[in-house]
């Protein structure tokens, strides 16, 4: 529903009240949140970069193969911090900075798994683990599919014009 349609459904009294409430509510500090997200997200990526470099220098990995073990370590770190109840505290400060990298994804799964452990391993952990992460996977896959098709069509046209 668009913002305009929503407004039309409200009575004049409701509209007047919402205008009053909007005036008093503190605004989300968007600029500050962006700066914090940039810094914290950057620091997480820097840590990831250091781990990759370490794998290449001492582990005998190449630039290409170091990616997977790096992600595994970042996920492990995130799950440990989630388990100790620290990740959500950092996230309140960092916002998107801790939500966007792979650590945020790991946190969403670990937190749901911990939360629903009391409802059993199968229905609790198994059933609820993707409660928060599920939409990311579903729409990530759908988006990748669409982009893939567009890419294929463009490539097809490209090669068709060339020959």
């Amino acid at each position, binding site marked *: 529903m668009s913002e305009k349609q929503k407004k039309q459904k409200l009575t004049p009294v409701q509209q007047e009240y919402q205008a009053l*409430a909007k005036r008093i*509510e*503190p605004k989300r500090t968007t600029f500050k949140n962006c700066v914090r997200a940039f810094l914290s997200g950057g620091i997480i990526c820097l840590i990831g970069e250091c781990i990759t470099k370490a794998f290449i220098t001492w582990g005998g990995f190449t630039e290409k193969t170091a990616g997977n073990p790096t992600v595994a370590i970042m996920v492990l770190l995130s799950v440990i911090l989630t388990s100790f109840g620290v990740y959500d505290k950092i996230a*309140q400060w*960092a916002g*998107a900075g801790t939500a966007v990298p792979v650590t945020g994804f790991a946190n969403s799964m670990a*937190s749901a798994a*911990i939360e629903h452990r009391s409802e059993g391993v199968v229905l609790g952990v198994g059933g609820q683990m993707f*409660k928060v992460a599920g939409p990311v996977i579903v729409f990530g896959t759908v988006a990748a599919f669409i982009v893939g098709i567009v890419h294929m069509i463009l490539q097809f046209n490209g090669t068709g014009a060339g020959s």
Partner: protein
Amino acid sequence: MTLRGHQSWIFENKPRIFGSASVVGPFEGQGPLANDFDIIHGDLMLGQSTWEKAENKLIEEAAKIAIESAGLTKEQIQFYVGGDLLNQIISSSFAARTLSIPYLGVFGACSTSMESLALASLIVNSGSAHYALAVTGSHNATAEKQFRYPTEYGSQKPPTAQYTVTGAGAAVVSKHGEGPLITSATIGRVIDMGITDPFNMGAAMAPAAVDTIQAHFRDLRIEPGHYDLIVTGDLAKVGYEIASELLKKHHIPMNQTDFRDCGMMIYDYENQSVQAGASGCGCSATVTYGHLLKQLRAGTWKRILVVATGALLSPISYQQGESIPCIAHAVSIEYDGTN
């Protein structure tokens, strides 16, 4: 007749709070009202295996201590009126199973504290019981789990968000004995101003609080100056400011009295990161049965009006885009040292 005006009750037979108790979690114990609570738990789990069991224990403990403080045993209590925030009010019903007192489960979201106290007072006032127990509680982790995200999930809360109190409060209402009198109650209407953001409960609930406060003054034909203190349940900073503005707009002279909010009293804004303030039915329950009753007994105030506010949403209703209907119930408590 008990009914006064459209929606208020005057309790002419002087029901009183004979015993009371408040039990809280560790985070509330770090707040400015720590000295007024009967038990502060150091462990958020309360030594239980699940959050839900912990909430259940909070409620049971508050009930037991309140009964003890009145010098009674649970067999002497005729009725137990109570509720909480969980689906099917399991915490209260499970506590009633343990206590085995005839039980009326009520749900008014965070307004349950005053809803149950008003009903318990009505039962005692009408002569339907010698003693009635009103208990309300909430737990931060169970509320977060049911209404929002997993507790350890890293989501950034907006400045309008509120922090659910871990705590339970209980009162034994009696016709006899010594204690603060419950003089009147006003039952609120459901008010919906079309707010749909569950992270902005204060703004959703403020109009309900204002409606009930106005109805109370109208029905009883009194002014705010009748009370030394008027407190709302859990509007927190945002809702409190909106409510103050609305009352001013409706020409209610709130400057005659001290107008506060329980959701702004229980935590320390400087050192505890709670965004707008506290919420949950444990908020008004622990602040009223802990802090406010102690101050009444100490003589700080003689007459107070507690207006507990509740947001009647469910996790499904807001996901379906429904707005948040809200309610508020007011109960007036008096103590002059000779009751």
